[in-house]
């Protein structure tokens, strides 16, 4: 496959995985938790690197998942001690992220890790860091990691579809039915962290948020069905990956920045033009309702 092909495949996998996870994220009203986790993943990666001195996929995944869970646990812990939810999110992730940046800036310094990379990702390098897979030839490592994460995340969403649905829309009912709500919460936080780190290499810490939240929010404006929303959200993620890459190529600028911006454009289109929950449709319906009906 060509160089551009690999980049597009990587970005599409990011868009698809983030789109699936993002749907549950915004339905569970945890958008800002995603913001927090995508920042703290950095600390997990730095610590995994300091311990193992390696930058391979598996160590980073484990470190990041641990950091994500630590974030979720700390936020919950502070919240239980009387700090407001949004304030405790703000404290935990800025502190952990700051520690990560300081570790990079002072100790890891001249290693492969650098702050710019952490923020923007290095999707342009991905096609070169390949590994040999029997029967398929050279395949970029990032693609393999993303495929694995997509399989795990997609599998978990599919396997516990009913549980996710109930815990997202009616946690009280879920608890009454004996569904392990807390376990699912932390499992989900783990899924978000793993997704964030798999996407991290490609798009960096901040753009992960765009990929997680925005396509899902756009999909939320088109449908009232969870299954349709999952599909649409994944589709929007892939679409923004393609559109972002095209824009970056035309303007010769940051690929990850353009992809984040493309998710915003898609959201704006949905926000204005969605037939179900869009602004234009709302206005039209309001006008139709205000007009006295012909029948009297």
């Amino acid at each position, binding site marked *: 496959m060509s160089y551009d092909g690999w980049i597009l495949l990587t970005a599409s996998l990011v868009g698809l995985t983030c789109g699936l996870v993002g749907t549950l994220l915004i339905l569970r009203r945890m958008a800002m938790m995603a913001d927090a986790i995508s920042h703290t993943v950095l600390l997990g990666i730095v610590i995994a690197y300091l311990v193992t001195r390696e930058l391979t996929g598996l160590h980073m995944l484990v470190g990041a998942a641990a950091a994500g869970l630590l974030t979720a646990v700390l936020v919950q812990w502070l919240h239980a001690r009387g700090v407001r939810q949004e304030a405790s999110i703000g404290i935990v992730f800025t502190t952990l992220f700051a520690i990560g*940046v300081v570790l990079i800036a002072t100790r890891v310094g001249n290693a492969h890790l650098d702050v710019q990379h952490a923020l923007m990702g290095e999707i342009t390098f991905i096609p070169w860091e390949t590994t040999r897979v029997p029967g398929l030839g050279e395949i970029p490592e990032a693609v393999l990691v993303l495929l694995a994460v997509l399989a795990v995340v997609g599998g978990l969403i599919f396997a516990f579809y009913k549980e996710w649905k109930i815990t997202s829309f009616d946690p009280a009912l879920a608890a009454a039915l004996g569904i392990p709500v807390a376990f699912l919460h932390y499992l989900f936080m783990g899924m978000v962290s793993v997704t964030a780190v798999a996407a991290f290499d490609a798009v960096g810490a901040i753009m992960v948020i765009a990929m997680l939240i925005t396509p899902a929010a756009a999909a939320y404006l088109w449908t009232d069905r969870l299954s349709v929303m999952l599909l649409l959200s994944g589709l929007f993620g892939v679409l923004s990956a393609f559109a972002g890459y095209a824009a970056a190529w035309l303007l010769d600028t940051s690929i990850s920045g353009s992809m984040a911006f493309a998710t915003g454009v898609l959201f704006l289109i949905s926000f204005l033009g969605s037939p179900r929950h869009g602004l234009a449709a709302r206005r039209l319906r309001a006008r139709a309702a205000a007009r006295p009906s012909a029948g009297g």
Partner: protein
Amino acid sequence: MIGLSHNALWVLVSMLMLGTAAGLVGCFAYWKRQSLMSDALAHAALPGVVIGYAILGFKSLPVMLLGAAASALAGALAVSWIRSSSRVKEDTAMGIILSVFFGLGIMLLAIVNRMPGGGQSGLNSFIFGQAAAMVRQDMRLMAAVAAVVLLVVLASFKEWKLYLFDPAFARGLGLSGRLMEAAWLALLVVVIVIGIQAVGVILMAALLIIPAVSARYWTNGFGRMLALAALFGGGAGVAGTCVSTLGDGWPTGPFIVIAAAGIFLLSLVFGARKGLLVRAMQRRAQVRSLQARTIRREGEALP
């Protein structure tokens, strides 16, 4: 002061002013439950900074800060627009604005960095903050604006208190809710904008959030909370800046945040109002008195 150059003194003074102003405004954000809004707006300021630079073609802090203020305001309006006219919730709207504006900022930054002379523009220092990159003029501007924020907060302390804790009563007294809302947004944007060069767009929110929450552990009085948050913010600003000058090219923002987090941890454990230590002691005293009472009652029950 020995070993402290005139420039370093200016850095410290302006960071002290910035931290103080951020601590005060952060208390308002805390009570308005908009701590994370400050995070979204700080990220949203990035494209404005870059556009401000691109329009002039050279670095001029006032123009870049005006650009930052404009794009942060646009972000704030977009959040409230999305929230009020679609079914998307506020936290999702903040996440969208934060990441999409930041993405746009990074796009523009890459384009500007390619322009002749753009690579040396120091625009990258707006991401994590670089107090060392500021010239004296910048610091004067920062300190002056922070002083104005301080004065505004002090002069209208009573109005803020009313507006935050009893908005209905405030309206009854003839205090316009819309005016206060606009004033609040203006204060927030101004503090964020003057802070981003020193602390960076990503971590600026921490300077607004952490001192206020820390102060809450020491007092129930609003006035005292403001004073403490100002003190904590100023302290974190100065301490973080000092540490960041120890290494070559170390970013300022993360060190300030770590200093603030240290203050928070101390407050969490030792805070006089609801710190963990005080709570544990109270619980123990309660258990003791309960035990003493039961023993006494059992003693009375005996013949």
